[in-house]
């Protein structure tokens, strides 16, 4: 190819600078904010000690954006926000302006672009999710599609603040769960041990590395048709898929046997209760593109019961702590089964070590 003559000498600069990305009113009141209010869904009002006020309009995005979409967001920021904008960790875009009169026209313009204004306070915010079939090398599904399908049904809940507390969702295309712990998480669950390609394995995998990856020591070296390979003790295998990451010849994904599980009660914040991890409440749901109706339906059932029964400020996990798991399953219509009893490390900590019983 072309010889690199106009050689630019790389500057290992790390994160982009942020001072120049802050609105002047933000810069002037940096670290001196007094309080905030949520005048209406999708709008925040922050007041500084100086008396300065900054309004934020928040809108949902598809996360899988394009330069066209981002230029349109820039147009809005140039028109109403002096050229500044930011994003939240849940893929929402935020426009900050000191001018209250810009808020309503901006909302209209964003809605006209097809971007829902909302995602504030006690609502269902957008989903943190993974890359899926579009870009990942080990996905069993396409998180972007699942998320789009779910958010279509939760559109109203994004644009309003009618939940007991905020609801954080995540979606992940394998059990590594890059989408993360959430109030409700939709995560792929493999149900069969990996299928091994013995012809390729020794060519594409470091055998000891794949053996060491297994958390239950189910992988052993073997020879198949005169070739060095690996075998899986299927009785021991817990279908986690860890080996597949180390060894692409141990195919864990399967069009029918890679299913979905639904998890609830993850909470990252320290507010009230300590952060908590999620529990499984449904599994063996089909991986059913392009709209995944079974997944959307199960998530809807949980949200409906929570919306009805949760007390103000209770996150989903806290709501369940109050009403108990028995009532959770009754009220959501989901079914508890024996596979939901933990069988892994620290399983005992999830058993009921008391005489507290719910009838």
């Amino acid at each position, binding site marked *: 190819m072309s010889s690199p003559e106009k050689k630019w000498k*790389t500057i290992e600069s790390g994160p982009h600078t942020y001072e120049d990305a802050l609105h002047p009113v933000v810069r002037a009141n940096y670290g001196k904010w007094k309080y905030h209010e949520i005048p209406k869904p999708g709008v925040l009002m922050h007041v500084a000690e100086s008396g300065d006020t900054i309004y934020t309009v928040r809108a949902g995005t598809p996360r899988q954006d394009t*330069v066209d979409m981002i230029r349109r967001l820039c147009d809005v920021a140039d028109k109403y926000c002096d050229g500044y904008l930011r994003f939240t960790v849940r893929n929402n875009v935020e426009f900050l302006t000191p001018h209250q009169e810009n808020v309503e026209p901006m909302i209209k313009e964003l809605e006209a672009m097809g971007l*829902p204004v909302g995602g504030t306070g006690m609502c269902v915010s957008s989903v943190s999710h993974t890359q899926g079939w579009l870009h990942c090398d080990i996905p069993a599904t396409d998180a972007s599609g699942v998320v789009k399908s779910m958010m279509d049904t939760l559109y109203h809940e994004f644009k309003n603040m009618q939940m007991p507390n905020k609801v954080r969702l995540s979606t992940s295309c394998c059990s590594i769960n890059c989408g993360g712990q959430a109030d409700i998480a939709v995560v792929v669950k493999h149900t069969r041990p990996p299928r091994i390609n013995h012809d390729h394995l020794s060519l594409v995998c470091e055998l000891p590395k794949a053996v060491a990856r297994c958390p239950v020591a189910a992988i052993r070296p073997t020879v198949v048709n005169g070739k060095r390979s690996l075998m899986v003790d299927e009785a021991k295998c817990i279908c986690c898929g860890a080996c597949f990451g180390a060894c692409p010849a141990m195919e864990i994904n399967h*069009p029918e046997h890679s299913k979905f599980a639904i998890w609830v009660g993850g909470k990252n914040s320290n*507010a009230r209760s300590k952060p908590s991890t999620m529990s499984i409440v449904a599994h063996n749901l089909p991986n059913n593109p392009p709209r995944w109706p079974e997944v959307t339906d199960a998530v809807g059932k949980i949200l409906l019961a929570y919306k009805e029964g949760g007390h103000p400020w209770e996150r989903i996990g806290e709501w369940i702590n109050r009403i108990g798991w028995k009532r959770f399953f009754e009220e959501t219509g989901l079914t508890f089964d024996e596979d939901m009893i933990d069988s892994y490390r620290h399983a005992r900590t999830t058993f009921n070590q008391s005489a507290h019983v719910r009838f």
Partner: protein
Amino acid sequence: MDGAESAASKEVQKSDEAGMEKNENFLNPTPMLDELEKGPWPSFISGFKELAERTKKPMLRGVMDQLEYSYNTKMGYWKGGLVTVNGYGAGIITRYSLIKDKFPEASEFHTMRIQPAPGLHYNTAMLRELCDIWEKYGSGLIALHGQTGDIMLQGIEQDKVQECFDELNQAGWDLGGAGAGMRTAVSCIGPGRCENACYDNLKLHQSVLKHFVGVLHRPEWNYKLKFKFSGCPNDCTNSIMRSDLAVIGTWKDAIEVDGDEVKAWIDQKGIDALVNNVINHCPTKAISLKNGEMVIETRDCVRCMHCLNAMPKALSPGKERGISLLMGGKNTLKVGVNMGSLIIPYMKMESDEDIEAFIEKIEEIIEWWDDSGLDHERIGETIERVGLKQFLEGIGLEADINMVSRPRDNPYFKAKY
């Protein structure tokens, strides 16, 4: 870079489009993906189509064809590889199609991870420039943002990566982390807008990531190491669960109470709301009513944030602010979910010296992990394997009761008697 050039390229593309006049034929049919154009939530498929029809980039067509194929077969078709830029060993996520015979236009679809500004703040000039460079060399697809906290520029061919990076780098952008090294960090909005920010997390983020920039670009550890910086215990970056090193703002003294605003809150919402929605939710029963006045017992407060969240105008964090450091958060694989646990209960974080002292401590921690950890073992897993006590000895920290939720419940250990 130069705005005129980008504006011009936009115009050129527009006139190209007008000249071709066969938009509807550029993309192949994608009936499965088309289903994702229905419904009110913004559709990424509609976005992809708009971009593909405008730019006529064959890669976009190929990738949509392969994605449609995945939706039909319910399998993924990308494999990794090794693409990088001069002097770096990480930052490009390499993707080759496993079925390039079927979809030759999708044979390469590499991602460039780019580190955004801490707090995900942008001005439109920098974002437009990023878009222009990306459209020039890559597909024009961007994820804002990846779960790593990076800007994900998705879809570039290997022979364009270096040139694209050079141009991005001149504009102030640098690649993010990947592999067994320091990773791109995440910060909440911090002092940029939040009244609860207890330290300047944007500045600390910037300083720490600049300090470790070498090992971010040239990974050489046992496994990945992630920082997240949250301004307060609401932990909007989900740092306790999602990072090896969770830096969370906190305070030591009493919550600041504005008595008039408390009264105004009660007048507006009623005493029932105060009891049911604030006092009863306090995890340590640190709040009580005395003669109708709300009283917080600071010694009982664990800085959970609930009352501040419920009464943002009346209550604020105390004045003696700093950070807590928790360590070891990671997700399920392989030992089960590991939440970060408290390692440094409090450190001041105001001056440049405070930042230097923090970085020094982190270097000691990493050195210990580099010596004691096994291949593919996150630092939380190493601590679990060798023991928290051994870790504390290794890095020279005194045991503190805040590091545990209670003392041990079994008697089997060797003490120094």
